[in-house]
């Protein structure tokens, strides 16, 4: 027995492959947070006054708030004065590159190494990338091609300059600056991120993606992503994240806002692989993120798919506000916690419109000393005649020191609603492992296969390019290649 437990422990401690530091010259502001810092960030980004005012309102509100403690995660108090709130690669800070040719070759090489080539001819056909490093966007690919269709895909800073009216209209329209402690902090100090706008009737012909990378030590990353799909528009958006190995924890507090109008559809996929800390729980990213989508129109649909394998602590609840009649919200999640990782993640589905539907499929995998919590809320408002929800929460335990926890909340104010909830907890058994090994599989392949089978329902929701990466991340060879 002990031998197979040892084996599971070893497997749970897989090496983090993106942990290298790139020696890039940076221009950072001193650590600490004050109104002056907020003004400085805004000035560096050459922002209009209305945006600075909005940031300051957020900052002043943040000063009145307390850090939430209800999540089932434990970490020492964060000293917000020790965080660097803005850091930019020097080459980008001094002279903003206008095209890919002007991007520092060192930066391009770093993205190559991460498996995110930014040279368009080398990119998998059909994926446009916005690359965000520390606090700034380094490059955005395929912009001209998308512009021909009226699709706007650029960094958030650029959107503020080029499309101020659009940004002003939608910024904070889904996640107000007063929303929660971390979202409010983000609203005060956010640096960059991506902006996508899909005009009426346009089906975005390629996957849009943002690759987030934290490189500098002690730097927090506070990015915002805003995606708007007008009537009948469709977009599939992907997001990937990595960071170097460092002994000290780093904060990532992002906001994602999605808005879908009548018959529009937004599919948002995340493969989150921030540095999780070492096998003793030292270092790693605190990933405190607010993601919310508003199904504003009839028949609109927002799908969240997330594969969360990184971060020391994950605190995020991608949610859907189902306002439009017949609108649909979906949440598919795989969260893996190994070593000393902690995750408290789930979703909120808020049904307001008539005949709104939501689906929640959550797969939590815990290994080592990992603690994995699903926390979800399904709310059916009085107005949501005929609303339906289906929830499924499964937990898989690997080894004997990890934990899985489930907190589903349900609040129904309309008796015509239909809700279903299924849940299970299972353990990768010695029996399953031995069975696979008796058929010639290595223990590593056996665990991968079992985990992959467990997460299959979620992985199949990912776009192809991402599914492959996600399966590798779960330590898996390609399932479903046959038949």
């Amino acid at each position, binding site marked *: *027995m002990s*031998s197979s437990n040892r084996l599971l422990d070893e497997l749970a401690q897989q090496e983090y492959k993106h942990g290298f530091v790139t020696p890039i010259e940076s221009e950072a502001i001193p650590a600490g947070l004050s109104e002056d810092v907020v003004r400085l960030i805004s000035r560096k980004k050459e922002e209009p006054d209305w945006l600075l005012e909005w940031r300051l309102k957020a900052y002043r509100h943040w000063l009145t708030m307390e850090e939430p403690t209800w999540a089932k995660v434990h970490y020492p108090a964060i000293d917000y004065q020790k965080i660097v709130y803005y850091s930019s690669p020097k080459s980008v800070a001094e002279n903003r590159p206008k095209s890919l040719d002007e991007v520092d070759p060192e930066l391009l090489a770093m993205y190559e190494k991460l498996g995110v080539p930014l040279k368009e001819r080398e990119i998998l056909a059909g994926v446009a990338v916005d690359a965000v490093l520390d606090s700034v966007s380094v490059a955005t690919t395929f912009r001209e091609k998308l512009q021909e269709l009226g699709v706007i895909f650029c960094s958030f800073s650029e959107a503020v300059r080029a499309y101020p009216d659009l940004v002003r209209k939608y910024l904070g329209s889904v996640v107000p600056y007063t929303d929660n402690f971390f979202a409010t902090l983000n609203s005060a100090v956010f640096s960059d991120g991506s902006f996508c706008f899909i005009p009426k009737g346009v089906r975005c012909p390629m996957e849009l993606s943002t690759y987030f990378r934290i490189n500098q030590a002690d730097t927090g990353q506070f990015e915002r992503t805003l995606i708007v799909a007008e009537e009948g528009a469709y977009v599939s958006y992907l997001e990937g994240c990595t960071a170097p190995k460092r002994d000290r924890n780093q904060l990532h507090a992002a906001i994602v806002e999605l808005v879908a109008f009548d018959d529009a559809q937004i599919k948002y996929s995340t493969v989150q692989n921030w540095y999780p800390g070492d096998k003793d729980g030292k270092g790693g990213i605190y990933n405190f993120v607010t993601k919310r989508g508003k199904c504003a129109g009839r028949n609109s649909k927002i799908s969240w798919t997330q594969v969360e394998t990184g971060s020391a602590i994950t605190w995020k609840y991608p949610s859907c506000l189902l306002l439009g009649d017949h609108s649909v919200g979906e949440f598919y999640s795989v969260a893996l916690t190994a070593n000393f990782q902690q995750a408290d993640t789930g979703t909120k589905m808020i049904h307001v419109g008539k005949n709104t539907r939501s689906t929640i499929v959550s797969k939590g995998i815990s290994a080592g000393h990992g603690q994995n919590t699903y926390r979800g809320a399904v709310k059916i408002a009085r107005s949501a005649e005929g609303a339906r929800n289906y929830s499924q929460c499964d937990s898989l335990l690997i080894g004997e020191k990890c934990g899985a926890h489930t907190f589903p909340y349900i609040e129904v104010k309309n008796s015509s609603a239909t809700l279903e909830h299924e849940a299970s907890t299972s353990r990768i058994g010695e029996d399953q492992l031995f*069975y696979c090994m*008796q058929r*010639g599989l290595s223990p590593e392949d056996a665990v991968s296969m079992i985990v992959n*089978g467990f*997460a299959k329902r979620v992985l199949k929701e990912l776009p192809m390019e991402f599914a492959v990466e996600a399966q590798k991340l779960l330590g898996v060879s390609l399932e479903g290649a046959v038949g």
Partner: protein
Amino acid sequence: MKKPLLEIKDLRVSIAEDGHRILNGIDLAIGPGEVHALMGPNGSGKSTLAHVLAGRPGYDVTAGQVLYDGKDLLALKPEERAREGIFLAFQYPVEIPGVSNTYFLRTALNAVRKHRGLSELDAMDFLSLLDEKAKLVEMEERMLERGVNEGFSGGEKKRNEVLQMAMLDPRLAVLDETDSGLDIDALRVVAAGVNALRSPERSMLVITHYQRLLSYIVPDVVHVLADGRIVKTGGKELALELEEKGYAWIGSGANASAPEAPAAR
């Protein structure tokens, strides 16, 4: 006499957790192509022997040795034994939800082929081989796409074991109570599948409580196990005799007849 494929010498095994002794000196040799049956009452150590041969964790080998093709079998990891051609048909096949039977088989087959210095089978070649072998056990296509043993009936699980055996082409197959939980029709299908896999290049150790299975899979040699020792060895007629007289018949006089290596045929 042909050199045995499997040679077990004075094998003594106890449960790792509590030191409880299960096998108290097993001697057994199986030649290439031979089918041996291992019978015995509940708790006599039949399944333990199967598990130890396959390398299941949780047992301590306290004495003796096992030679497989002249090599020290007990020094190999479970997956190495499998790749070297040892196959265990489980008494209780395990479910692996979400992993399709087809994918599982292909991964296993390619792991085994790689070890044997063969190239991986491509999807087309694999599927045609699978089609052919699935017919052996009358396995329908839809079952190949389901999760490994997920929601299978007892009979389906056992047929799936024989299908895996057919695909992996082992040199030594250990069938651990493959007849348990089968109705008579399922038993016939499973036995026919096993018989089709008999060959001069494949040896089998068929573990069972009942003679019933052995009228379908006719063994060359029958051993009777009691209290962790082989107490009687004979030809196929020994199984019939046991069926008639019960295990109690072996009784006290059994220990006197020292286990003999089976005669080569």
